[in-house]
């Protein structure tokens, strides 16, 4: 007996259309030149061009924007995951003084509004000379991605029975051998999902990225919001840039789709 009642199936179909329309519209505008867009309103682009995409790939301002974004996102993901792995292992295997309070404190950091940290970050990073560098943004994002990684990894790791740790000790393996050759391989899909979520969170954020970068390390997200006002509304190029920022997520999400939901729920599902 399928429990999917007719109503929910219709609503699902409707919502899918609701999701696809704006994305479709982004693509159509990205395929039309700015003049064409301003001209006649067309549902389907009559003479699509790839000029906007070419503009993005060649124009140094846009191109550099992508490179800057990718650099601090990768830096952030590397730091967060490598720092979160030992912490998540310890949280899932041991009870220790203040473990609950610490786990809660991490949550409050994940939930902290970025706006609150604009001011102090700006001052902190400029005082230690890190302003306008990818490292600044990477470290700033760690405030969110490290707690995110610890929660997700801990959620997955507590699914692995502790008897496996006992068995490795009884077999005579050193902790390091167990951690690298047994425990991490067992959790490789968890690590994959965590990397995906760190990448996405850091890739998506605008406020801190804009505040902590000047001209040198300006990421794509900032380039997009700034150019709108500077050279008038070049909608075509903006839409093309939008398509490029959407692509990384869609390409990777297929590989982590089984664990996607557990990642969104901070490992708690």
């Amino acid at each position: 007996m399928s429990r999917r009642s007719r109503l929910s199936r219709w609503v699902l179909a409707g919502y899918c259309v609701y999701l696809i329309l704006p994305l479709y519209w982004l693509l159509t505008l990205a395929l039309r030149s700015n003049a064409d867009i301003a001209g006649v309103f067309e549902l389907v682009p009559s003479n699509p061009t790839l000029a906007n995409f070419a503009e993005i790939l060649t124009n140094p301002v846009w191109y550099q924007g992508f490179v800057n974004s990718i650099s601090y996102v990768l830096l952030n993901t590397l730091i967060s995951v490598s720092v979160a792995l030992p912490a998540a292992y310890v949280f899932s295997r041991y009870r220790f003084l203040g473990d609950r309070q610490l786990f809660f404190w991490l949550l409050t950091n994940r939930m902290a509004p970025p706006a609150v940290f604009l001011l102090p970050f700006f001052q902190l990073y400029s005082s230690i000379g890190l302003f306008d560098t990818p490292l600044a943004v990477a470290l700033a994002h760690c405030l969110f991605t490290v707690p995110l990684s610890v929660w997700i990894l801990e959620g997955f790791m507590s699914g692995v029975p502790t008897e496996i740790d006992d068995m490795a000790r009884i077999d005579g393996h050193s902790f390091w051998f167990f951690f690298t050759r047994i425990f991490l391989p067992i959790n490789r899909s968890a690590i994959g999902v965590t990397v995906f979520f760190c990448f996405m969170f850091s890739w998506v954020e605008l406020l801190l990225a804009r505040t902590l970068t000047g001209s040198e390390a300006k990421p794509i997200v900032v380039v997009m919001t700034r150019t709108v006002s500077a050279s008038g509304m070049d909608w075509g190029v903006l839409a093309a840039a939008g398509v490029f920022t959407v692509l990384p997520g869609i390409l990777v999400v297929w590989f982590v789709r089984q664990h996607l939901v557990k990642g969104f729920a901070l490992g708690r599902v």
Partner: protein
Amino acid sequence: MLNVNNVRLSDSVTQGFDHGFAAGEMTVVLGGNQSGKTNLCRLLAGLPTQAAGEVWHGEQEWTALSPQKRSVAVVFQAFVNYPNWTVAQNIASPLLAQRVDDHERKRTVASLARTLGIDGLLERLPSELSGGQQQRLAIARALAQRADVLVLDEPLVNLDYKLREALVLELKTLLAETGATVIYTSTDPRDAFALGDQVMLLHEQCRVQAGTPLALYREPISLAAAHLMSDPGVNLLPGANRDSDKGCLAIRPEHVLLPGEADQTFADAKVFDMQVDSVERSGDETFVHGRVISNDNTTNEQHWVVRRPGMHSVSVGEMLALRLRGEDILNLALN
């Protein structure tokens, strides 16, 4: 000789016990659920546990040593294998830790896999094996370690009925050949008889009694000990013995004879009348349940189970004159 001193299996226990496991001998630790069996296994293996106490292996004290530094192998109740390694890698795991050379390792893995009947599965992952095969893999890995002490914590309880019966016989010869000191925990008295050179009875985290299976079966010191050694538990004799709170009399279900069964009449036979309230036939045995009233008409009434081999035609509601030998009556302490 493996000795444990002043063992308290949980923090709520104050009085510790000492026990010696003779080298090369197989001891079955028999006890119900939550009786402390797993805590004892973890204490011997050096794994973190509530249980406290000293562990001596010969002259060497193991109490403070980590599992890596003790020569102990363990088979857990849930089939614990490394999910990301193949069957061959799982068996080779302890050999890897002992830095055994490649050739020797391959040879040992192959021979153990053959002995445990999983040599056709060497390249498979544990998740592709059946329950029985996964536990055989865990046993093969424990044997590969060639440890002096081998601990098996209710290894067969999650297996199918027929599989369990076959593996118990196999384990008997396999474990004897290792020459290791074996500790095997179970809830089933049949395992105690089948595997145990020695038996240790645990009840509510305390050691109740220890000895050979037959000694414990014939002379249990307390009601709890008596219950553990037969399934279903012993029947309390109704009548006078109940009010004296320091002891009681009981009879094992298999020592009660149905009417017309006792071929030769024995001198000190005791007779009890039972009103049958249900009958169970399991093919090779018949279980008769009923209420027994003592013949010196005190109100004290007991529920008895009579277990007889073979098939017996008994109907519900019938009054039976049960006979039992005076010698079979057990004099038990109440605690």
